[in-house]
């Protein structure tokens, strides 16, 4: 146990500030405020691999490492689309995943955001359109934000997620509020 504690102490804190979106200063606290104002709680992301080569998944994983510390910014990954505000979709949509992707989208409650990740998510990438590939995510779902890159860096992914957060209508009542009730987070 002591060696574990010593290692933790020696490693220290390595989390870095969030990247600023183009032409705008936004620190971790501002982002948290924005998410709280819009949702009254953490932003919940459901990742869907719709046919990716798994390269984008490696960088999505990196978002949770101590350097990018996504959870520290009030954003977390959830296991069910029913718990999600945002779908992070990778891959050209393979023909074999088209139905599963649509069903995942349908299972996600409104209002929902879709972020298409990677060159493949943006336009089908090197796989293009074929008997097996539908092409980019927008061929199947309405897409709010696109994050190009092959694979996009964690910083690019964070910027894309932040851009999507800005599309959230501020003052959506949190899910726990009954219809017609007012939210304490309402601006």
């Amino acid at each position, binding site marked *: 146990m002591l*060696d*574990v504690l010593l*290692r*933790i102490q020696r*490693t220290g804190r*390595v989390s870095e500030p969030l990247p600023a979106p183009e032409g705008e200063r936004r620190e971790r606290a501002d982002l948290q405020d924005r998410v709280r104002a819009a949702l009254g709680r953490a932003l919940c992301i459901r*990742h*869907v*691999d*719709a*046919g*990716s*080569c*798994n*390269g*984008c*998944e*490696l*960088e*999505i*994983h*990196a978002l*949770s*490492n*101590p*350097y990018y510390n996504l959870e520290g910014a009030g954003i977390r*990954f959830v*296991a*069910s*689309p029913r718990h999600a505000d945002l779908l992070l979709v990778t*891959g*050209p949509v*393979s*023909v*074999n*995943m*088209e*139905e*599963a992707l649509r069903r*995942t989208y349908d299972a996600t409650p409104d209002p929902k955001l879709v972020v298409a990740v990677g060159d493949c998510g943006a336009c089908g*990438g*090197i*796989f*293009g*359109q*074929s*008997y*097996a*590939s*539908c092409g980019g995510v927008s061929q199947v779902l309405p897409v709010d934000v696109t994050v190009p890159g*092959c*694979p996009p*860096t964690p910083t690019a992914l964070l910027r894309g997620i932040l851009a999507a957060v800005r599309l959230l209508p501020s003052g959506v009542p949190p899910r726990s509020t009954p219809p017609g009730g007012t939210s304490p987070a309402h601006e």
Partner: protein
Amino acid sequence: MLASLQSYPSSAFPSNVRASGLSVDERGWLRAAAAIREGGGTLLALWGSDDRDRDRRFRVHAAYLLADELLVVEHALPEGEQSFPDLASLFPCAARLQRAVADLLGIRAHGGDARGWFRHGGWPEKVFPLRRDAEGEARYPSTSAPYRYLSVAGDGVHEIAVGPVHAGTIEPGGFRFSVVGEKVLRLEERLAYTHKGVDRRFEKLGQSAGHRLAARVSGDSCVAFSWAYCAALEAMTGAEAPARAVALRALALERERLANHLGDLGALGNDAGFAFGLAQFSRLKEELLRFNDDAFGARYPFDLVVPGGVAVDLPAAVGPALAHELEALELGVRELRSIYDEHTGLQDRFRGAGWLDPGLARTLGAVGLVGRASGIGRDLRVDLPWAPYDRLGARLWVREGGDVAARVQLRFDEALESMRLCRALLDALPPGPTRVPVPPAAAGHRGIGAIEGWRGPVLVALEAGPEGSLRRGHAHDPSWQNWPVLEFAILGNIVPDFPLINKSFNLSYSGPDG
């Protein structure tokens, strides 16, 4: 070459490793497989081709790993024939490979499993996308086709259906568990959800762009696949990548192995309830990726390996920085290894879980890391070393345990060995150019590239068409072999141990889905 096959015409096969080719008839297809099985060989890949435009025949091809060479066996089906002998009784992993060939080309193994593998209903049953007369770019209306899993009957047996969308940041696939209480009686996988038509796409891209597609067959093995592609093309054309380029390719390949092993070691700790392991190893991995960015211009160097060499040279100042980084990394890994080894709660979960008996591993034809953790001492870097491994002397690591603990230990062993290889490469990095021009391969020329990626042997087989085009391209991921093995390793374990056991295999979906 095996003595019993000497009646068939054979020749040297262009490759980065010692390889020969053999042409056989229908009887020879089985005889060769039986002789290879008898001699302890392994089936590495199996694919088909439509050559009806040339000689009115379909062909099946198989690549085997023998003791001292790679053997590519080719069988031209008799004219008008659309079936070939089933190899699954000799090499169980052939069953799914043959189903894949049937979906793409409409040629079947006699009496094999008739269920589709790649085709889930996304294109019509009578359309075979790899046939020369098929329109590869066409899209078809999707019809949902039911799939018959094999069911287990008995008192109290029930099924758990998982996927294709899984509960984490993971690739999609279908798992059907038959369980009694929490004990797994049977697992059946249904994959190919991420089938993207890679083989057909090679034909569209041509020789000079195919390496970019190869790198995206399985992104976590981008260096291995792009190197295998370039190795095949270079062998076909006689082009030779300069010494500096092959050293940098090996540096990138070993760093790819390191990045994946570090990620897995963290995730394995996490899946056994030790979040500290994930935090520590993901930090080490992130630092490795940042140094990759300095060295190769990308955290994941998808487009580093190009025909004739590498796309970018290592900046002069980065070499010493990498050596320094490796020192710190090795200290970190050794410290974490001793923490893992001495953590009784962690070892309790690792030991005995997902046990793959070495004898069964041989019968099933397990390859790569999973095979080596069950006593199968095969590694292309050691058995059939190509440049620069011929002078590097990679050390073979084997564990006999066959459980999650053995697969964890092997990752530690191999990570430390990769650091040693990286240091050796950096210490003696040859000067000179990093790329030579590669002329187009002449139509009809064939070649095969074989690279030991972090999971196991990665293969790319190519046949040139006219004017720099590709007539046929085929990429093979070692997960093809090891997915069916996982179905056995889980037997008798409890459902809650599946994530841990699955992670200890960490197989690719996209790679075998193609």
